């Protein structure tokens, strides 16, 4: 009975031998430890391992930028796939030239990551386990969970290392707004939490795929994921949108209100968050 790792290795070997892919992105282990790497030859596949879990998706973008013609393979977990879908929406990755070897995370990895979808859409290797709900589904409980964290205290430990931004697969802007002195004061550490973290969370509102790279990268151990998870839940509830699932589904923040399940089929003439106007109240407010 083949183990999951053996199965992945044989799929990888086959893809490389047939020439369908020029290289396979995976976590590999050698005498210096485990690291992400690109396997070029079929015989190199023996060094492929699963642990530690590492988001390989951003490397697809780097490699495709270098070589615009060849197809790449990637051992993709659920988070990798979601990251690739969102990166494709942002024009950073050409999904036609990526072959995914779908890896479903095992229960321990899923629990460690606290992931809500620890499996890709097409599973080639591994057994699907159900995800962990990071945040309570709705209403007051949801609002409360965002506020449960004492953000003032947590964000006061921020070193402004930009690790969260650098590690994030979706932080792709050539001119990052939080790198500009206009929005984030230079030389001020910890940064104004509103400026740095709020702007980042707001920019990623419809893009974050909850991979946890930001929190993993943070040297100060700030629970960044909670901030993003809260907003993702709100988006799912109010705008019925979950990023990373469908490469053809545009973010609702780019479409008009008729297409988002927001105020229903009738758009009120006057809509104000102050309320008190005829048809002024938003659904769910």
């Amino acid at each position, binding site marked *: 009975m083949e183990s999951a790792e053996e199965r992945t290795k044989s799929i990888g070997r086959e893809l490389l031998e047939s020439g369908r892919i020029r290289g396979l992105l995976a976590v590999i282990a050698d005498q210096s430890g485990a690291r992400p790497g690109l396997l070029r030859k079929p015989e190199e596949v023996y060094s492929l391992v699963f642990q530690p879990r590492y988001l390989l998706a951003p490397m697809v973008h780097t490699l495709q930028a270098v070589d615009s013609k060849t197809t790449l393979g990637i051992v993709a977990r659920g988070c990798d796939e979601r990251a690739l879908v969102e990166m494709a929406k942002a024009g950073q990755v050409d999904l036609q030239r990526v072959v995914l070897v779908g890896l479903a995370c095992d229960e321990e990895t899923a629990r460690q990551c606290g992931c809500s979808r620890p499996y890709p859409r097409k599973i080639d290797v591994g057994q699907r386990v159900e995800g962990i709900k990071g945040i309570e589904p709705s209403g007051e409980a949801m609002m409360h969970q*965002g506020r449960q964290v004492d*953000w003032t205290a947590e964000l006061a430990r921020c070193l402004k290392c930009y690790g969260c931004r650098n590690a994030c697969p979706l932080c792709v802007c050539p001119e990052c707004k939080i790198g500009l002195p206009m929005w984030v004061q230079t030389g001020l550490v910890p940064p104004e939490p509103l*400026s740095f973290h709020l702007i980042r969370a*707001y920019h990623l509102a419809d893009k974050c795929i909850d991979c946890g790279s930001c929190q993993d990268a943070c040297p100060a151990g700030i629970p960044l994921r909670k901030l993003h998870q809260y907003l993702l839940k709100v988006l799912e509830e109010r705008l019925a949108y979950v990023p990373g699932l469908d490469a053809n589904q545009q973010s609702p923040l780019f479409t008009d209100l008729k297409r988002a399940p927001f105020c229903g089929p009738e758009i009120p003439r006057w809509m*104000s968050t102050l309320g008190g106007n005829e048809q002024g109240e938003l659904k769910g407010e």
Partner: protein
Amino acid sequence: MNESSDPRVLIFACDWCPGLGSDRAGQDRLSLPSCFRLVRVDCAAQVSGEWVIEAFSGGIDGVMVMGCHLDACRHQGANHRAHKKLETLRWLLSGLGIPPERLCLSWGMGREALPFQEEVQKFVSTLKLLKTGKEA
């Protein structure tokens, strides 16, 4: 913090409906609170989340973004998208513990003076309530 008890309000008003409404309010000599500053923008959709965040960072108590009726934006329904973007920001603020009432989104001003006056007065009194609510 503030010496006076009046909340500091920043209003982003699009050039079309609310901007002209504010002009009319001035022409008609309507009584308006003195604690706001108005910034005219070509379209309310120009208002980015960063502007609002920077305003709060800098000590502004409340921000209003005013635009035209939802089906009457001359920039191809940009106010729809502006509303969704800024509504997302309101939710984010609320998750961090900042009352979302501090960001007011108002779409529906015609070029009318009285609605402008009412909206601004309503917002200032909401902010005053927030303040006393906090201090109480």
